[in-house]
């Protein structure tokens, strides 16, 4: 716990560097990644991330040291080259984009690993730590690295801000963008360059293998919470930053631990939480809504049942036992009990001496369901020419979703009919 306080207090200037660096690069890759996500080019980020490795290694071999400026330049060149090759393969062969990405990703990564092994065998004293590019090591961000990477991060954010309108348009409707004369190819080049730069500065902290997660996962998680682009970008940045800080903390307390996997785990947890719990788009919300619908259907069916029994006897408000209900229509016991007490709570049923009885409100509601059922049956036979013996099952569902507006339209359209296709009386509220 103490470590957390020391970490958060930023007393150690080194911590300050690491945290600032990680947060900035997490934010910039989340924002840039949001646009590749919206363009449905998520895998491109992965290809670039893997393709920068040979560049980093070559830069090291040629310069002989780990100066971040050289490494960034090297990474940029091979990362960019990989995208150009992917584009060319797609344009000039039968190979589709997903295959081209797979091919290039593995070739470049393989080459990178080969070069890295060569460097490690060469015994160059300065090479130690180069392998942190594979899985990331946020704590290795020091002094000049942080200044270089943070500057690039801020630059990326400025470019996105300047091109916000243009990047949004080419992600939404490329043909329209071309039709109004926007330089779409050059704008795509801007986005590609931004992606490569985001990867290049991210690899020190996250590593090439998992860098794609920093581009795509924050955007994918943020999309669950909002339908507004600007809010989505802010959320993606926030999620990225949280993951970045957590990764930096892990790297700070346990320097032997690679940072990348931790950052990716945390951002993935955020994505999972979004997936399950986000309002309106989350799985949980959808399940709750489904259950609510099921309950409404069951309750309306119970009231309908009371009404049907009453209709047969000409006495709607007579108290009835559960046994009577079950004899007419099979209902699961637990669901029936829950439904009955819910309907009592809402004032549609009364209960005394072990017997259940419709209230006037309950009778109206049951009657409306029956009415809608029969109107719908009639509508199907008249307007869709469906045989009378085929309309019941459909009406069983539709009776629960027709709104009062549709109800009055239906009544007018059918001219307030007296009976349904089975000659059952259609009950209107008097």
């Amino acid at each position, binding site marked *: 716990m103490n470590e957390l306080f020391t970490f958060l207090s930023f007393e150690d200037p080194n911590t300050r560097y690491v945290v600032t660096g990680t947060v900035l690069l997490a934010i910039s890759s989340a924002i840039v990644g949001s646009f590749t996500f919206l363009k449905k080019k998520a895998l491109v980020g992965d290809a670039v991330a893997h393709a920068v490795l040979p560049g980093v290694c070559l830069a090291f071999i040629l310069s002989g040291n780990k100066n971040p400026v050289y490494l960034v330049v090297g990474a940029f060149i091979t990362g960019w080259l990989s995208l150009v090759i992917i584009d060319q393969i797609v344009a000039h062969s039968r190979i589709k984009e997903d295959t081209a990405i797979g091919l290039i990703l593995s070739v470049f990564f393989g080459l990178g690993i080969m070069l890295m092994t060569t460097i490690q065998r060469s015994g160059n004293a300065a090479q130690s730590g180069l392998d942190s590019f594979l899985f990331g090591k946020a704590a290795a961000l020091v002094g000049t690295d942080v200044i270089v990477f943070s500057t690039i991060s801020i630059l990326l954010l400025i470019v996105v801000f300047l091109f916000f309108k243009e990047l949004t348009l080419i992600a939404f409707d490329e043909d329209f963008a071309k039709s*109004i004369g926007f330089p779409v190819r050059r704008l795509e080049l801007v986005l590609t360059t931004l992606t490569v730069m985001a990867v290049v500065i991210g690899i020190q902290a996250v590593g090439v293998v998992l860098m794609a997660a920093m581009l795509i996962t924050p955007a994918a998680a943020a999309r669950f919470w909002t339908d507004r682009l600007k809010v989505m970008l802010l959320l993606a940045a926030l999620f990225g930053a949280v993951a970045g800080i957590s990764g930096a903390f892990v790297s700070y307390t346990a320097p032997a631990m690679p940072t990348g996997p931790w950052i990716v785990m945390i951002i993935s947890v955020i994505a999972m939480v979004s997936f399950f719990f986000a309002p309106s788009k989350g799985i949980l919300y959808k399940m709750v809504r489904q259950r609510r619908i099921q309950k409404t259907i069951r309750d309306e069916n119970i009231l309908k049942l009371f009404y049907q029994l009453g209709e047969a006897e000409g006495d709607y408000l007579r108290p009835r036992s559960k046994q009577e209900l079950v004899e007419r229509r099979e209902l699961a016991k637990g669901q029936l009990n829950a439904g009955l007490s819910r309907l009592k709570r809402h004032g549609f049923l009364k209960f005394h001496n072990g017997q259940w009885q419709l209230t006037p409100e309950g009778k109206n509601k049951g009657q409306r369901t029956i009415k809608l059922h029969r109107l719908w049956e009639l509508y199907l036979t008249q307007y869709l020419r469906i045989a009378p013996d085929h309309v019941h099952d459909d009406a069983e569902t539709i009776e629960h979703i027709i709104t009062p507006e549709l109800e009055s339209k239906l009544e007018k359209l059918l001219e307030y009919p007296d009976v349904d296709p089975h000659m059952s009386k259609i009950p209107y509220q008097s």
Partner: protein
Amino acid sequence: MIQQVDNPVLEVHDLTVSYDKKPVLWGIDLTIPKGSLVGIIGPNGAGKSTLIKSIMGLIPLGSGYTELFGASLDQVRNKVSYVPQRGSVDWDFPASVRDVVLMGRYGKLGLFRRPKKADHEAAMTALGQVSMELYVNRQISQLSGGQQQRVFLARALAQQADIYFLDEPFAGVDAATEEAIITLLRKMSEEGKTVIVVHHDLQSVETYFNWVIMLNTRLVASGPTSEVFNQRLLQETYGGKLTLLSEVGNLLKKGQFPNRETAP
């Protein structure tokens, strides 16, 4: 029957377009007079969308050129508006109706500049013309097919152009929307704007359009509806592809031949 006009707003000259060397449009020559309401008709795969896409410079031309207002597209972009097929974009994109309609102003704004008050007002006016003002803050994913099409049309209206190309604006929309759109297009045409529509429903051609382009890989007819929309030309348009032409097309594809000796 191909009727040419003097001082056309649109001229398509010797246009050939190929996908993978196989021509989908073959030697198209046509001219359209100002203020026409034009329907492009023809069977599936006849090259209707390809024709307007090539006029909009969205696909490379195999041969020929197109001119708008007697100039190349780049010189008159601000007077030209294009409405892609509704299905060509992802309606789940995080954007509101306002965001999409404002895109119609981007051409006049140019790069880097943000929409200003006047642009917002133009967008609202355009939305009003398609009766969608109340939906201005609605997310586009929540719109019906007809409403999506109205939003696309509003974006085009916000461009305040003089010639409009619409790719199947009536596909999959409700009757009320179809009625609203055609009324609007008629009004635009009366105001002297030229409207060119890729259309599918032969029933409505005569009531909707005063000029018809009939396509089936080659141009079968282009002229006033009353003169070209007849049984004989419809038969020719919909009576299948010319077998010999298709076979030559297939040969070009198979041998990867250029369709002009001088083509790159």
